[in-house]
Structures are given as C-alpha cells and as structure tokens.
C-alpha cells in the first residue's frame, strides 16, 4: 500500500479509536486496558513476516525472540481479559451463583 493511503488509514483509525474507546464504561477500564494490550500483540504478524524472510541465523534468532514475545502478549492478553470479563455478572445470574455456596456452607 502506498504512503498516502496508509496515512489516510492511520488518520481515520485515530478518530475511530477515540470514538469507540471514549464510550467504554469506566467500570470496564481494566479489561479495556488488558484487551487493548492483547490487540497490540498483533505485532506478531510483523514478527512472523520478518522471521519468514530471515536467512542469517542471527537475524532469525532475534526475529524468533520477537515472535515469542508477541505471541505471549497476544495469547496471554486475550486469555486474561476473558477471565476478567467472565467475572462481571449481572444481578440475576449473581443471585443464583451466590446463593448456592451459601446453602452449602449452612449444611456444613
């Protein structure tokens, strides 16, 4: 893609980014941060491209290090965000989920 087209996409992405993110409820700011963190793990695509073109063993080593770091970022980011969001429950589900352990405690 040529420079001007990339620049156009960049500028538009800035506006989309601010538009979408400013609507995120502040209750979810931590998942927002860890989700955004996961998204920048997509640098993996860049790391794979570089590693795929490497012929020198040193270059390959550095590129593979980048692949390891980026994969850790990407996979870990999405997994931990999912774990966090799973915990945000509404009132209805919460009542059934919270009552049960209490009943068990009573039996003990």
């Amino acid at each position, binding site marked *: 893609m040529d420079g001007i087209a990339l620049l156009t996409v960049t500028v538009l*992405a800035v506006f989309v*980014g601010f538009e979408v993110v400013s609507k995120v409820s502040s209750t979810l700011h931590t998942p927002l941060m860890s989700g*955004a963190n996961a998204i920048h793990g*997509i*640098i993996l695509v860049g790391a794979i491209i*570089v590693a795929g073109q490497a012929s020198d063993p040193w270059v390959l080593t550095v590129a593979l290090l980048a692949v390891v770091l980026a*994969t850790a970022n990407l996979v*870990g980011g999405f997994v931990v965000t999912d774990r*966090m969001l799973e*915990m945000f429950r509404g009132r209805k589900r919460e009542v059934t989920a919270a009552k049960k352990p209490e009943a068990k405690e009573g039996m003990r």
Partner: protein
Amino acid sequence: MTLIDPVWTSLLYLAAAVCFILALKGLNSPRTARRGNLVGAFGAALAVATVFMSVKMDNVPWILGAMVVGSGVAAPVARQVKMTQMPQLVALFNGVGGGAAALVALLELAHTEDPWVRVAIVFTLLVGAVSFAGSAITFSKLQELMTTRPVVFAGLPTLMGAVLLAAVGAAVAVVFSGSLALALLLLVLGLAAGVLLVLPVGGADVPIVISLLNAFTGLAVAASGLVLGNVLLVVAGTLVGASGTILTRAMAAAMGRSVAGILFGAFKGGSTAGSTAVSDRPVRSSSAEDVAVLLGYAQRVIIVPGYGLAVAQGQHTAAELALALEARGIDVDFAIHPVAGRMPGHMNVLLAEANVPYESLKEMGEINSEFRTADVALVVGANDVVNPAAKTSAGSPIYGMPILEVADARQVVFLKRSMRPGFAGIENELMYEPQTTLLFGDAKESLTKVLSAVKAL
C-alpha cells in the same frame, strides 16, 4: 509460495481490523464485553493465519515452535494470575509487546533505503524500547521486587535530558545512514530513557504510568505497521494508542493533576503544603458492634472501597457484608473512585471477582448525587478520595481532585488502620465531624468483625 491472492490478504486483514474495533466496542457494556473479546481473539487468529498464507515464508517450523513457546508461557500465567496482580501482568504484556515491536523495526532496517520508512523505524525502536524498559520497572515496583517509593537522585533530570538528546541525535543519524550499530545504540538509549522515566514515579501514581506505557506500545505497533506497509498493524496500534491516551487523561483528571506533573513532579521533590502536625482533636471511635447496628438498621448504605481494602485482601469480606445487608432488605451500592486500585478500573475487577454484581458498582459521577439519600457511607481503606479538602482548601496538594461526596451521607463510618493521613499526606477534616465514626484496625479484620456482628443482629 503464496497461497492466496494479495486482494484476499487485504480483505482478511480488513476483517481482522473490524474484529478489533468490535472487541473494543463490546466493552461499552459488561453484557457484551466477553463476546467482544472473543471476536477480537478470532480476529487475531484470522490475521495470523492470513500472514502464513500470503507471504513467501521460510523457517516455518521455527516460527511455529516460537509461537508454541510464547503461548505455552503466557497462557498458564494468564489463567492463574491473582486479580490483585492484574496491574503487574498488564505491565508485563505491555512491555513484551513494545519489545517485539522494537525488534521488528530493528530487523526491518536492513530491508529499506527509504528515509521515510527509516523515520518510522527509529520511532518504533525508541518508543518500543521506552515501553519495554518502563514496563519492566513498573512490573518490578508492583511486584515489589524493588522499592515502591519514588527513586530520585540529584542528577536525574539532567541525565534524562542527556539521554533524550542523545536518542534524538542517534535517531537522526540512523535515518540518514541506515547504520545498524547506531540503531542498536538508539535501542540502548531508549531502554535507559524508559528506566529513568518510571524510576521517580511513586506507587500511587502507577495507574497513570501503566496507561501511558500502554499508549506508547500502541504507537510503536502503529509505526511498525507503517514500516511494514501493513494496514492491520496500523489500525490495531492506533486503537491501542487511543485507549491508552484516553485512560491516561482520565486518570490524570481523577487525580486532579496534569500528566506532566505526575511524571516530573518527583523531579522537583514535591513539597506537601498540608499541615504535617497530626492534631490531637477528639475523634469518635467505636466498636464493630456499634458499626453493625448503624449499618443493620439503615435503609441505604454506600460502601466506598479504597486501595487499603485491596491491600488487606478484604474485597471478598466486603462483598459478603454487602450480601448480608441486602438480606436484611438494605439497599447497598459500591461507590468506585476512578483511582481506587493500582490501575484504571482495578477496584471493579476485584469486586467483580468477589461476585458483586456490576449493577452495584457505581461510578463517581453516577453515585455522587446519591450520597444525600444514604444513611451510612462506609469508607474502607480510602482517605484522599473522600477528603473534602480537595474542594475547600485551595492550598492543599489534592485541591481540584474530584472526590466522592461521602460528607453528604447522614452517617460516615471510616474503617482505618490509624489516624495517619493518606498518601497525599494531608489530614481529613471529615474525621472530626460529628456525623463520623471511626473503627480502627486492618480493613479485612474490621470487616470480618462487622460482618459477624451484622449477622448476629
């Protein structure tokens, strides 16, 4: 060999970019958030599959092996990490992302002659390295591998200035020469700048640093997208940059300070204007049983959890107390100040983990008008975020910081360790008001006592 046509490559990257936007859009509400995150993960998988099919690839087994190693390390950590340790983990992932971007830029230097591409490369190198080193220091502070206090020494501002100046010089030289040795020097200078940036920041200001480094990594990834001519990286990086910027600004606003003031405040050796002499005016301290009576016969209780609650690991007890009060027909909400916890929104996650439904977690703007109708405001391990001095005393270091208006409630109960002032080092006049009751002790122990007393009512 390439399996698919370049047009398809572009379309699949576009689809992945849309997935990322939808992932962030899902976070508008806790109901749609989890699905959004899965859409984002799908987009990432799609993008990775696309890159393997679209470029001529060598070393495929090696690359796949590196991916297995990366996910093999990260997934178990992500599954097991404690919610109180979330800020550390986010800092860690943030750092490795920035590091990966810097390495990619370093290796791309050999593939280009275009000075504009080199500009994007030096930018990625520098910002990625700052993010990597800064995150590493943030991680060490949060994990308490090093002191959480601001680390300041005499020549720090001068040293920082010199490093930045040298980095700019090296960056310009790389753009004109394309020299790999100078690029490595730039990388080292970037790492040094990252360390120097975070060292003087104190523990309570960490939320802002995490947000800022998040924005930095986003920018580094977006710039690496310009280097590789890859739209997806540009869009993804820009989205992250936007989220980091917005969160940084939100945190600064919630502290009533400027971003620059927080980052460079320690350089000046922040003098606290507030009275340091602890006054011996009388306060009304009380027993857990009395507090339980206050709470148990109220109609509406608002709990204000602060960082002290998280430190004492008392969030589960607080949630149980809320449940016990609700069982008595009392209306209970949690009022969350934006800087409660060690990263933006951290307290919400801690309480969600303790099974508090998200409808009960109220933001500052939403709950402030409701304190008027509350019988009791129960402040647990918080101080500065409820200190009226932020509104009334113009000389106070926290003047201008938005606070939770607990003084509007009919009764205020503080669960506090001691009369020691909060992080800002200033006294809280609210403690001496006639409507205020204090219960001294560790937040979790006090909550446990109050909880059993409420159950005994």
